[in-house]
């Protein structure tokens, strides 16, 4: 069993080893990697760890209820992540591909909505901006909705 949150690079291979098995013929993987938007060089991820782990456990329990034949694992990386490296990986293995795709997609959508995790973009010029969920940078402290 792997940790849900890690400060190290994510090993998709290890996640796969956790969920694959001889009766599961379809595996769907999703990886989110840090994108080079404008002059972003890396993103610093921080979390409310205890709550994030609780939410992940609930998400995986919901996934298991909806697709009992699927096995799903996810790992979210925290700390400074350079462009091109993965911030999250989700692996869903199931006897057939429908369940593998559906379970994997369900988890990433829930992650985006529920996980108490935040991104701070680091720019080439040394400045940093917090990212809001719509993907727009938040410059000051008063621009929340």
């Amino acid at each position: 069993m792997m940790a849900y949150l890690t400060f190290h690079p994510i090993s998709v291979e290890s996640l796969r080893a956790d969920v694959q098995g001889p009766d599961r013929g379809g595996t769907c993987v999703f990886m989110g990697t840090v994108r080079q938007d404008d002059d972003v060089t890396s993103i610093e991820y921080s979390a409310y760890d205890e709550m994030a782990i609780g939410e992940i456990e609930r998400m995986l329990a919901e996934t298991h209820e909806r697709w009992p034949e699927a096995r799903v694992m996810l790992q979210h990386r925290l700390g400074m992540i350079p462009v091109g490296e993965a911030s999250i990986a989700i692996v869903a293995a199931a006897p057939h591909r429908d369940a593998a795709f559906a379970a994997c997609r369900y988890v990433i959508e829930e992650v985006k909505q529920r996980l108490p995790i935040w991104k701070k973009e680091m720019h080439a010029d040394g400045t940093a901006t917090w990212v809001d969920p719509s993907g727009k940078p938040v410059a000051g402290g008063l621009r929340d909705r």
Partner: protein
Amino acid sequence: MATVTVRFFARYAELTGCESAAVAVPPTATVSDVLARVRQTVPGARDLPPRPLAALNLRQVKLDTRVSDGDEIALLPPLSGG
């Protein structure tokens, strides 16, 4: 009085310059009341948005949820995981 712990994350931790604060509120207080008290006692907290996301004991809650002695309230900037 009830004493609760308030935790600040990400940008809110930057605004307040602090990660957590102990706050005393009446026993009938809600998360909103805790937030109002935080605004008075934590300097940078005046700049928090009027209705931030909040969690009570590790679950998201509405601001009118009642709090109890020993609870942990967290103020969460818009989530951006993944």
